[in-house]
Structures are given as structure tokens and as C-alpha cells.
């Protein structure tokens, strides 16, 4: 476990104990449920696979916000991926490049609808950091998600 993660968990434990004392165990438990469900219900852990020319992964839900998005951004290991080099497929819709997404043709994301992302960025091995950014047509602040996972070979 990385040092910052240890520190974070210790901080969480201390604050959790504080909440337990002040608000009762229900609040503490429920916050843990929420944190777990959000962590486990957006990025499908283990879905990061190597493809012939890059990677792909799956989200089981949109990250924090649903609705229509007019701009998407993807970074892998801190490097932005050109929008014409990656695709997104939401629900039963066809896959489309991020470059095709705009205010007149936004991507629509809904609760419980899987989203598949594929990027042509060359071969990758080991653990990578992926960051996905989305701009809603209705609410300005950018929504983002970031995860670290090991790239698996197909069939692994």
C-alpha cells in the first residue's frame, strides 16, 4: 500500500471514529456503503484489456453524472489521447470516436448502462493510470474519474 494511501486510510479511520461517536454507527456504516458501491459500480475492475493497438475498458455506470456530454477527454498515464484515436460505446448505441462528439451530437450516458471505451495508443503493459473527463451539456463543471489497473491480455 502506498504511503499516501496508508495516510488516507488512517485519516478515514480517525474521522470515522469521530462520526461514530457524534452521529451514531448508522451514518458511518452508510457512508462506507456509498463509498464501496461507487467504487465498485463505475469502473468494472479487471476490464482493462490490451487490444491489437491499445486498450479497452468498461464502466458499468457513468461517473457521478448522467445525461448528455458534448466533450470527452481521455488520458493514459497522464498523456492525453487524441479524440480521433479513441471510441466510446454507451448502452446499445454504436461505438463512436470522441472526435465525433459535440454539442449537436452528444454522448448520452444513463444509470446502469455499460460504457465501453477503446483507445488506439499502442502496446501497454503493467499498471496504468486512466483518466476520463466529461463535460455535460447542461451543467458546466467537468466530471472526471481516474483509476489504476493492470492491463490484461485478452482471455486472461
Amino acid at each position: 500500500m502506498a504511503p499516501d494511501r496508508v495516510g488516507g486510510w488512517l485519516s478515514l479511520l480517525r474521522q470515522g471514529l469521530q462520526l461514530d461517536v457524534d452521529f451514531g454507527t448508522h451514518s458511518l456504516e452508510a457512508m462506507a456503503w456509498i463509498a464501496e458501491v461507487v467504487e465498485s459500480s463505475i469502473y468494472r475492475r479487471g476490464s482493462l484489456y490490451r487490444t491489437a493497438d491499445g486498450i479497452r475498458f468498461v464502466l458499468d455506470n457513468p461517473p457521478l453524472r448522467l445525461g448528455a456530454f458534448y466533450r470527452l477527454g481521455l488520458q493514459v498515464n497522464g498523456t492525453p489521447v487524441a479524440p480521433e484515436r479513441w471510441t466510446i460505446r454507451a448502452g446499445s448505441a454504436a461505438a463512436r470516436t470522441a472526435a465525433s462528439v459535440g454539442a449537436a451530437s452528444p454522448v448520452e450516458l444513463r444509470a446502469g448502462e455499460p460504457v465501453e471505451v477503446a483507445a488506439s495508443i499502442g502496446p501497454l503493459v503493467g499498471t496504468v493510470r486512466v483518466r476520463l473527463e466529461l463535460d455535460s451539456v447542461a451543467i458546466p463543471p467537468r466530471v472526471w474519474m481516474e483509476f489504476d489497473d493492470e492491463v490484461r491480455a485478452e482471455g486472461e
Partner: protein
Amino acid sequence: MSAPPFDPLLRSLGAAVLLDGTGDVTYARECRGAVTEWGGVYGQLVRLTGPWTIDVTVDGAPRALADGRIASERVGERWRSVHRFGRLTVSQEIAPLAEAPAVVRRLRLAAADGDPMNVVLTSEFVPFLLPVLVEGVRPVEFRLATAETHLRVRERGFGLDLHWNLPPSYLFLNRGSWRGGHWEGPVTTVGSEHVVRLAAGAPTEVCWVLGGGLERDLDRNLSAAAAALAAGGESGDGADAADAAWRASTPTVRFPDAPDLEAAYAAARDGLRRLYVAPGDGLAGLVAGFPWYSAIWCRDLAWMLPAVLWLGDFEWAERSIASVFRFQAPAALPLLGGTAGELPMQIAPGPVFLYGTSDTTLYFPELVLRSLRHSGDRAAAAAHRPEVRRIVDWARARRGPAGWVTNGGEAEAIATATRGVARVRLGIDAPDTTIWDSADRRDHAIDVQVLWIQALRSAAELEGDPTAAADLTAEAGHLAAALPSAFAWPDGPYLADSIRHGQTVLRARPNALRAVSAGLFERNRAREIVARALRDDLATPWGMRTLSAEDPAYRPHAYHEGQVWTIATGWAADAAYAAGVPAAGLSLLRTIATRFREENGGANECYRGDRPEPYNSCFLLGMSLAPFLTVLFERLWGLRVDATEPRLELEPAFPAGWTRASIDGLRLGGGRVAIRWDAPTLEVGWSGPGALTVVFPTEVRRAPAGGTARSEWRAPDPGES
């Protein structure tokens, strides 16, 4: 003329259902720019299910229940429909239970003459089991277990039970057959098949009760479910009876010269009642709105409680305030964005969600004072004194060099605090969290400063220590005196939206009108500000924009950067009256009243800035309803109360041409007030206890207990106002 929109909400204090009137529990609505399915059952502030549909199979041919609908009606908080499939008639009723977080769905099957027939009913729902705040996330994996009388679905600490009166012949998971027992894994749909052998003249009833929220409370609801299954067609009556009793306890307001406002008063009052919620654990409050803000948001609650007090529900207001104070942060909670003394963004019997708003905490000192003035309950106000002091300390710790409270950086602080904890990190790059929380209004938004001044003033009145009270009054006075020049718009009649890095942020928003309402300007200057706000870059025929259409950042569909919000229209009405421009105030109230009428009991959150079309909008929002009611009492009627004396001030702002108006049953402390104006006679009746001091527009009188006080007042002549 288009038909009024369908009212999709059925609710009680414990549960809600959203449906579209087609016959099933489905409800698609545009949200954040895309059509999204919000149909389902909600309990204990948790979305229990997504759509819940029923198929009817007669002689082997399955059809959606909705396909056979021939009639439907809404009766209170119940929805009834009749469906016909050849010889089969299905009468459906859907209603939330009054006291349990559950909904009953009852089908009465009747066959016309002929041979007995086999009818198969297939119920299918999408489990959700997550508080609505976690927007756009439906858990993937669930735990299921069957019992003799019901099916239980759980997901971490949340859960639901589906009870039936007719045991299913088959169960389905993800549209595949399931033999029941226990299951744990991904679930998209849960189904059950119920077979009925139906003979002519022998109707059969098939009934489900679906409820839940928190897993720990599921067993507690079993008896309520059993009672509902056994109750026949009477379930749902409890919610209607409770609503009727509540309505009867609220004031009756009559405007014979303005039936539109009278109707709007009733609609807003009834709408507010529909947001009442008691989700468990002793919590009480009002949910912010439907569909996607069906949770107790403390900022929204703060906007609603003044109206709740005018409606006479002192007890609910006090319970709501106490519910929020229960979660006042005792110390810094960085992972939740909370600092000592802060009040949370949301409360629930389950999770306490994030703190980290700049304004929520500041509303509550004034709410405590308002509650005292309406109820006269000095003990309750004194009991809240420590919490109010902590609020003042919290805000003082956020002051900048000039004494203004700082807003901004809250979401960033949470992201920083949680960075080392989560495996999957999520965030919204919101630099700021004022009431327009998607707009960047750093560092000292004007309405936050007005709230701070009002909080100081209220805290001073509630403070028991004279020295501390004097300090609070002095600080409020200093800021109130400084605000007009600090936020002055150079060479213009308006006010800056914020101060950042010592410079005014010159963006025209309706938020500046809060300074007028707070009485921070002399009359002529206040009128200039209101007149500027009512220019057509900010004002539209359907309400006030959140940002001037002349601002480079204006977008007509952007939530807080151009859309029209009814709460902002309420602010403008309030400010117009405060500035002595009652004609403008009345016009703005009528703008809101028109929205209520056209929305058939709804009160949209917001509309596009370029046309009167709801966009990214909850269909019923407390912040759209309540300010209308508060302005109606406080500005149009000109009422101010203090039950501790008791005292009533009355200064109507009725327009020329009006001759009559009345309020009956206005609660004040331990008594009730009746006000009748039949020009020129203005009469106040008082039920007691003790004598009531009545401050009329031109004189002060006393009404003895059980007696009246009279004066005279006429609406101004045309042109006078």
C-alpha cells in the same frame, strides 16, 4: 390549448412512486440533456427500483398492462387505471402507504361471461437500491433471498422487500428462470409470474407491496406490508387523510380580486406538503424535489421552512431544524468537506453526505429566530443557542481580510482529502459551492455575504450574553454599512456578483437582489437596483435568469449560467416589494402563479433562458414553491409576527382596485389570527391566549383574547404605487 402535464408523483411521508400514467411504473424525463428513466419506487430517501412493469397473458398471448388501458384517474395520492384485454378487465390501483416506506399495487381481475380463463401476470422490476444523490449509478451486484410471502433484495446496507398475496409460480432473474432461494451476483431485472384461474362473476385480486430503504429496517416493515395486503382497496387512505388534516390546519387565504393568486397559494401549499418526509431515525424534513433531488438537502430545506412556519406547522419546522443540527460537524471532517460547526449538504437516516457548501450553514440562525417568532417557543430557541454560536464561529473562521465570508475551494478540498483513499477517484471540477453551485462565484459572493449579515443579526437576537450580542450586532452593522460600496457596480445601477482578489466581479445575477431584500439600501437606491434587475437581459416573461443574457458566459441551457429559476423570480418579487415597487412585485408573483397553473400542481426547478421550456429541471421543487408563499405573507400581506409578545404587524401592499382579502387560521404562538380586509375596514381577530398587539399601517391596537382589533386601510389609488 394543450392538456396539462401529467402529475407523475404519488407520495406519503415514507414512500414515493413515479409513474407516467400509461399503466406501469415508468417515467421517462429529460435530465442533464438526455431522456432518462426515473420511474420506480422510492423509500427512506433511497431509490428502491427503476421501472416496474406488468405483463398480462390471456390464453397464451402476453401484452403489456399499459397497452390495454381504457381509463385512469388520480384520487389523492392514489392512481387508478382500468385495462381491457378481450373478456378480461383489470382494475389497478397504486398507492404509497402512509406510515411505512412502501407502495401497494393492486390488480382486480374480472372476466366477462364465458368459460373460465387462465390469466398470467408477470411482474418485473429493476432493482436500484441507492440514494438518489449518487446520480447515475445503479449498483451492479445484489443479494436476493425468497421467503414464503416475499422476495428480499439487498445491496450493502440498502434493501427492499416485494410481498405478494398470490405466491408466484415462477421467479425470474435477468429474464432467466430462477428457482428461488438465495442468489448473489449481477442483477438487471427481477421477475415473478402469478397464475390466476378466473371465472366469470368471481373477480380475483392480485396484490404486491414493494417497500424498503435501509436493510436494518426491513423486518420492521413486514407487518405494515401484511396489513396492506389484507386491506383490500383501502390502502393509501392514510396518506390522504394525513394530508387533509394538515391542509385543514393551514391558513385559508382569499383574494377575491385575484383568484389566480388564491389558486397559486393553494397549489404551492399543497405542493410543499408533498415534499414532507419522515425517513426514519426520528428525522423530519422536506425533500428538495422530484425526481432527482428526492433527499433532504439542507439548503433547500432552509428555503422551505419559512413557508412551513407561515403555514403554521411549527412542530415540523422545529423537528426539521433539530434534524439538521444533529449533524452539525463537531470537528473537522476533511473527507466529507466539513469543518467544525458546519451543517451538512444532506441528511438521511443512512449516510450523511458531504458538507462543503458555503451557504447552507448560514441560513440556520435566521431559521431558529423565525421559528421563535412564529411559535414563541423560547425553550427551543435557547436550546439551539450553542449550535448557533458554533455556526458563527464556523463563519468567522472563513472570513477574509475585509470581513467577508469566503466561498470556494470546498470540492477541491474534498478531492484532496480523499485522494489517498479511493481506488477509483471521481470528481467534479466545481470550484465553488454557493446556491448556484455549478458557477464559479469565488471569493465572496454577494448573497453569501447577505446571508452572513442576516446570520449575525439573528444570532445577536438569539444570544443570551449581552456582550456577545453587542459584538454580533456591531459586526453585522459594519458589514451592512460596507456592502453597498464594496459591491458597487462602477458607472451602473447594479451590484457586483462577487469580490475576487480584491476586485469586484461584474456579472449581473439576480442574487444581488438579496441585498435589497435585507434592507441594505435606502429606498431610491433599492429601486434603481430592482429596475436594473428587471431589464430584459435578466428578466423574462417566465422568470428571472441566473445570469444576464449580455454576459459572455451566458448560455440559455446552462444550469446556473443562463437558465431561468423560479426561486430567482421569488427573490425579485421580494426585492421589488422591499424597494417599494409593489406593482413589479405583484407582476413577478403572477409570473410564478402562471407557472404553477400551467404545470398542474408541479413547480419546475428551472427553464431554458431563451424560451419557457423546462430543461434539466425537477418537475416539483420546494425552492420554487416556498419563496412564493413567503413573499405572499411577508410582502403582499406585509405580515411580521412575534409570538413572544405576542405581536402582529400588518402592512398590505395590495394594488389599486382590490377591495377585499382575508386570511383565516393563521397560527401565532398558542393562538390563531383571522385577518379580514373589506375596504376600508381592516379587522384582526385573535383567539388568544392574552392580548395581541396589532400594528396596523396607521395605528397600533390591541386585540383581546377571543376579540378583534380594527383599523382602516385602502389600496393606493391608481398611479400612486
